[in-house]
């Protein structure tokens, strides 16, 4: 059964603080109580972390149908040899860079949806990305993204932690756009804490500042929001200082971002959705080395992240969804690369999963203009995540009914 616990306890305690503050006894509440209030009630909801592989990941060289001679024929230069790859079963292997994620599969923490896509696939990066982000075609009105609609569906009280965070320096993904809730793009833990000279005394001052008895509802609202912001800053600061992990993250941007997310989750932020991107998958030329570096980067980072969350006791409530805007052409091109394609694999990694491979080996003899046909509409994966993981009705978010897949236990 999906967990839909809202943070009623936390909110109750917070509003008690706000309420007490409003009648003038705010300063009488000891700090330890306020701390406990925020800490205890927070951090119970399930969390989705989206990793976007930007540029179009070559799915065929990620999850490899090595026993299929059509694969080798189509890729004289680029086919991964059976001896190099990680052999999964009699006809499927994983790219040799993906040891970390393969370990997660063995540990029951990885689900691969082999061929995800949609009807009449678009091969423009931007248009395809917009389709994945909004679940809508160009001819339809597109004002928000699927995750934006999800956070909109959550009855969040304003003033608390943000419902979603985009980490990185890249443009904010359309998927997070909603009608009314702005999602911050942040780059590091520093963005969650008071910074600058004299921050300790300011932090102290803000904690001690009593709320005046006020009939001004707006002021009471800002006062309680400030209290939670200061608490959040405190928690993140403590978490950052005290954060130890026996898991070694690789040295990469993506790993750094995921580590930051792990710290935020551990700090008890009530944020439900995190979004990161890894760019560079548009491998039109000399693909082998580039692709192998990118996959290693992604696999090692996600693998470390999921293990780290386990160590900190959050493994069961965090799931990582990885997708790319399209797969690549089955036949390699003349530059030892591949061009824009259609269907490709999606990955779920983390807690609550029915681990394993979902779907058939792609049929390389039945192509759509040289590209793989999809077996599962990507919105069925979204629907499953929304319903079984995030605990909401997917239909209004996806704009249609999509049958869920048995991806979660």
């Amino acid at each position: 059964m999906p967990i839909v616990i809202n943070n009623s306890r936390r909110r109750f305690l917070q509003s008690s603080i706000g309420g007490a503050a409003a009648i003038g006894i705010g300063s009488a509440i000891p700090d330890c109580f306020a701390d406990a209030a925020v800490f205890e009630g927070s951090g119970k909801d399930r969390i989705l972390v989206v990793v976007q592989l930007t540029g179009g990941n070559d799915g065929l060289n990620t999850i490899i149908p090595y026993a299929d001679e059509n694969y080798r024929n189509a890729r004289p230069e680029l086919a991964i040899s059976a001896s190099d790859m990680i052999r999964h079963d009699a006809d499927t292997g994983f790219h040799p860079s993906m040891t970390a994620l393969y370990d997660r599969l063995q540990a029951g923490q990885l689900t691969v949806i082999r061929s995800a896509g949609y009807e009449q696939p678009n091969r423009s990066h931007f248009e395809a990305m917009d389709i994945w982000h909004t679940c809508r075609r160009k001819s339809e009105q597109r004002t928000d993204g699927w995750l934006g609609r999800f956070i909109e569906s959550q009855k969040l009280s304003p003033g608390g932690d943000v419902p979603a965070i985009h980490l990185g320096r890249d443009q904010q993904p359309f998927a997070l756009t909603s009608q009314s809730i702005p999602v911050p793009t942040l780059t590091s833990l520093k963005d969650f804490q008071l910074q600058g000279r004299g921050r300790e005394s300011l932090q102290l001052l803000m904690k001690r500042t009593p709320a005046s008895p006020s009939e001004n509802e707006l002021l009471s609202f800002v006062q309680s929001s400030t209290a939670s912001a200061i608490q959040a800053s405190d928690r993140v600061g403590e978490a950052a200082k005290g954060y130890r992990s026996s898991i070694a993250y690789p040295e990469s941007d993506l790993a750094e971002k995921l580590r930051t997310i792990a710290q935020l989750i551990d700090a008890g932020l009530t944020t439900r959705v995190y979004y990161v991107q890894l760019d560079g998958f548009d491998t039109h030329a000399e693909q082998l080395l580039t692709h192998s570096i990118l996959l290693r980067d992604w696999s090692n980072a996600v693998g470390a992240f999921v293990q780290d969350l386990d160590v900190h006791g959050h493994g069961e409530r965090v799931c990582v969804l990885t997708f790319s805007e399209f797969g690549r052409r089955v036949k390699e091109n003349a530059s030892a690369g591949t061009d824009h394609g259609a269907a490709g694999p999606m990955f779920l990694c983390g807690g609550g999963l029915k681990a394993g491979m979902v779907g058939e080996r792609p049929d390389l003899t039945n192509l759509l203009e040289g590209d793989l046909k999809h077996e599962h509409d990507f919105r069925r994966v979204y629907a499953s995540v929304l319903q079984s993981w995030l605990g909401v009705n997917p239909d209004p978010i996806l704009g249609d009914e999509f049958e869920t897949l048995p991806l979660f236990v």
Partner: protein
Amino acid sequence: MDMQTKIDPAWAWQPYQPDESQPWDEGLAAHLYRRAGFGADSKMLHAAVKRDPSEVVDNLILRNSQPNEFRSAADGLTDTILATGNPKRLSAAWVYRLLQTPSQLLEKMTLFWHGHFATSADKVKDPSMMWDQNKLLRHHALGDFSALVQSIACDPAMLVYLDSAINRKAHPNENFARELMELFCLGEGNYSEQDVQQLARCFTGWEIKNKKFRKNRYQQDVDEKTILGQRGRFDGEEGVQVVLKQPSLEVFLAKKLCRFFVADSLEPSDKLLQPLAELFRGSNLQIAPVVKMMLSSNLFFSSHAVGQKIRSPVELVIGALRCLQATTNSQLVADGLLKAGQGLFYPPNVKGWDGGRSWINSSTLLERSNLVSRILENDATRFGGLSLDHFLQSQQVNSVHSAIDYFERLLLAVRLDDSVKSLLYESVASGTQKPDRKYRALLRAFLSLPQCQIG
């Protein structure tokens, strides 16, 4: 809130006349400048209370264009920035204008229209198109709403933003037609889907080519359309005219202006808005008279309005800097405003900023305080050309206590409790730091207070 039932529309929009119960003082003058612009320094407040409130409002309204000298200086800076091709730098050029303009209300209205006709550089990319739109908004900001809408309908940045750069007869693009009615003029529920489709046909053949608007007559649908009950062979301008004649327009705009200038949580009834709406229609959709009526009104100077808005990031930061005659690194401010949720030229979506409580969450609150800290630690930040402690001295402020009172008078819409004041005092007075550092710490603390987020 059922406040509107208690507010008498006749009283609400009557000009405010100072009396003993509601005297015209520095508090109300500061309120007026905060709302009609970004804030007043000590000298301006001093001067304002010596005049009639109506005279002060008149002066704000009359400055409906930028003085030539200021304009050429600010435009020169903008041109340099346009050459970089980086729209984030363009935000800094606007920050410079916000900080320096002598025409505060004009700039505030330009910001209002930027949120109303929201267009983001995130999508448009090209800074020169964004800047042309900004000039357009400023040009009409206190002028004729019909002319403003007609210009926006042909604005390259807007049409690129709404994916309407191509509009063929066989596939009319409904996007602009829809937003024109839903977001720009009438509000949801005041038109049908059929109106959207019919209006969209009027705009066929309207295109953006090489960053310029043009009409492609081969793609123009010249057949008859029926829009909002009107029938004719309307072209784009005529389609806009049909929308502009709708009576729901004046109420829709009056409501939005009222929320922007008067109060966040006031949910004004149509009845309360009626005098504003009638004036707007009666003056052929001239913007200035409506704004003037609001800013001069009993309601505006009443407890329904004072301290009843959450300051936007721009209002907080630009306001504080202007009140203290400060200059600083505009790029630093521009980048911080984006992080705090109000990137200039970067509204979140076509609806613009929702404002009110949506400005506030734990990230944006922390960023407000951190941005203030970065500004105060930056070497380029000067107050009346001086360091903060020398500036305060020049204002006869010579102690932490008097600095607290000075900041309160200039920066706050609500009064501070004595207990908060003593905490503020303790937080900086105990240290052994130099005076300038002490005052900067105090100012940062001040601007981080919940009370300071209310304007």
